[in-house]
């Protein structure tokens, strides 16, 4: 059963424009110029229970706007959003009992108090039974290794420590649906691994659905089976991560080691990117040429010691998609 259904979601923002300089600043006293920014231009998708779905897209693509509409903190211009059977905007207070949200580095915790105080506040706020609260808290604390830091005032914590505490605060009431807006931004490599493992574990053990936006393809590759790519307020890809390669890969890379000195050559659909003493790097355009033909050609022409065929990195593919 789909727990999120978004149909033809549209949202525009008014944004006020002005140039640099003092004169320009005075000009807005007379006439304020604004332009309409169309953040979402008709977005539709569904999310099934128990999924970890990744939402990616360049800055300003509309990811956060979509998340805000799904969380019920923003009213859309048109279109329908239904999450867990609720209308997020109209039934917000009831709906938010069932979700957990972390908006990147925006502090979710009481700034001057230790995180542990926020955790206990969550217990009261969501009426979490003491026994369950204790169990979840000690489990999460161990998983993310924050026993120590959760007793320091939040303002003294590092970005990564704060992020871990945010995650715990957002998950204590056992929400069915969790939105994470850039959960690993500004976090070191080890902490990143911890956070990813944590998300994976909670998803597996509690069937919690996660919606994650990120710019880190590592998050996506580690966690998400399915991704949605948004650009210019529209969905340009919605499907399995594994299929994106097949759909968008238009080239393969060959790395060839030779036994005799290399020299450049011309062959249809081949782009030779580097030639050094005993090495060749070749990009094969799959529209014009097959890899087999190139191999055959190379075997005839050179004495080959070793050959490696590789796909472009997922990051390269995504970059290519963003540029369109």
């Amino acid at each position, binding site marked *: 059963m789909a727990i999120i259904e978004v149909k033809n979601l549209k949202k525009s*923002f*008014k*944004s006020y424009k002005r140039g640099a300089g003092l004169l320009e600043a005075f000009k807005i006293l007379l006439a304020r110029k604004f332009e309409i*920014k169309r*953040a979402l231009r008709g977005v539709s998708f569904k999310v099934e229970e128990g999924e970890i779905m990744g939402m990616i897209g360049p800055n300003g693509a509309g990811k956060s*706007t979509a998340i*805000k509409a799904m*969380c*019920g*903190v*923003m*009213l859309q211009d048109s279109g329908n959003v239904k999450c867990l059977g609720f209308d997020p905007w109209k039934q*917000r*207070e*009831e709906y*938010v*009992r069932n*979700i957990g*949200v972390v*908006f990147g580095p*925006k*502090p*979710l915790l*009481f700034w*001057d*108090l230790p995180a542990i*105080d926020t955790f*206990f*506040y969550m*217990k*009261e*706020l*969501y*009426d979490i039974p003491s026994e369950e609260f204790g169990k979840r808290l000690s489990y999460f604390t161990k998983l993310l290794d924050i026993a120590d830091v959760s007793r320091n*005032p939040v303002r003294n914590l590092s970005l990564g420590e704060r992020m871990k505490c945010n995650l715990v605060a957002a998950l204590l009431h056992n929400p069915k649906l969790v939105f994470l807006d850039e959960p690993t931004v500004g976090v070191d490599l080890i902490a990143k691994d911890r956070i990813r493992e944590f998300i994976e574990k909670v998803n597996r053990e509690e069937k919690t659905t996660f919606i994650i936006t990120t710019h880190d393809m590592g998050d996506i590759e580690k966690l998400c089976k399915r991704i949605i790519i948004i650009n210019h307020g529209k969905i340009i890809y919605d499907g399995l991560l594994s299929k994106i390669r097949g759909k968008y890969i238009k080239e393969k890379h060959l790395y060839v080691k030779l036994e005799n000195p290399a020299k450049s050559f011309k062959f249809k659909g081949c782009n030779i990117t580097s030639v050094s003493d005993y090495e060749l790097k070749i990009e094969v355009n799959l529209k014009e040429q097959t890899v087999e033909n190139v191999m055959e050609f190379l075997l005839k022409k050179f004495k080959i010691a070793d050959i490696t065929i590789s796909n472009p990195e997922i990051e390269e593919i995504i970059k290519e998609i963003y540029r369109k």
Partner: protein
Amino acid sequence: MSKFWGASVIEIKDMISYKFEVFIWGILNPIMLGVYYYLWHSIYTFSGQTSIRGFTFGELISYYALTLIVSVITWTNVDQLLAGKVRDGTLVNNLLRPLHVFTYHLYKKIGGTAFTFVGQALPLVVISILFINLRITSLPNLLLFIISVVLAMLLTFAFSFLVGLSSFWLIKYAGVRMIRSGTVWFLGGNIVPLAFFPEAWQKISNFLPFQYMSYSPIQIFLGRYDLYGSLWVIAAQLIWLVILFVLVFSGWKVALKQFSAVGQ
């Protein structure tokens, strides 16, 4: 109930981590009282009057002591807090909680007041009893005064929150806050009693909420109203409370649409 407990405890913990701030106000208020004392002492001495507008010197000093005590209880910066959250977008965090932003801040205000009552109001009460001869006029008056002060606190809070909603459009709120707190301070009778104002204004003032935020409860304490008059004050406070609550909750819905219409 547990939500109330949770939010008010958070505020108390917050205040404990800034106990120095609370302590400073605990010192400032008695100093203010001393300033009022010497100012009015010289006014009474040089004018040669024993009573000005129906206040003897002793009554007037009691009045000022009470304004300071009441303002410890009614003081709020909820509008400023709200404006800050609107400006930097952290209001989103509050919207994601199953507790109305108004209710949340009210719970915190009550928790904070429990703390400032002990830290600031009680010392003032003791000083006033010892040094300026503050006495209760009757037990019923004291009880009616306590009820009326609680209502005054809610009134001031609701009014501040309502004015604070303008920050959804203004974004920068400091100027409006000055006007808001100045109005409450002046028209509530904190600078001089409303009895010192022109007669015509006193009539208008009966139809505004401000005198019920400080002046009227104090008049009850001083025994200037009969039982009927005191009950009428409490009734007027309740009427204003209903009006302000309706305005706050309907205004909130409009303001929230504004919040989401601007990219945050």
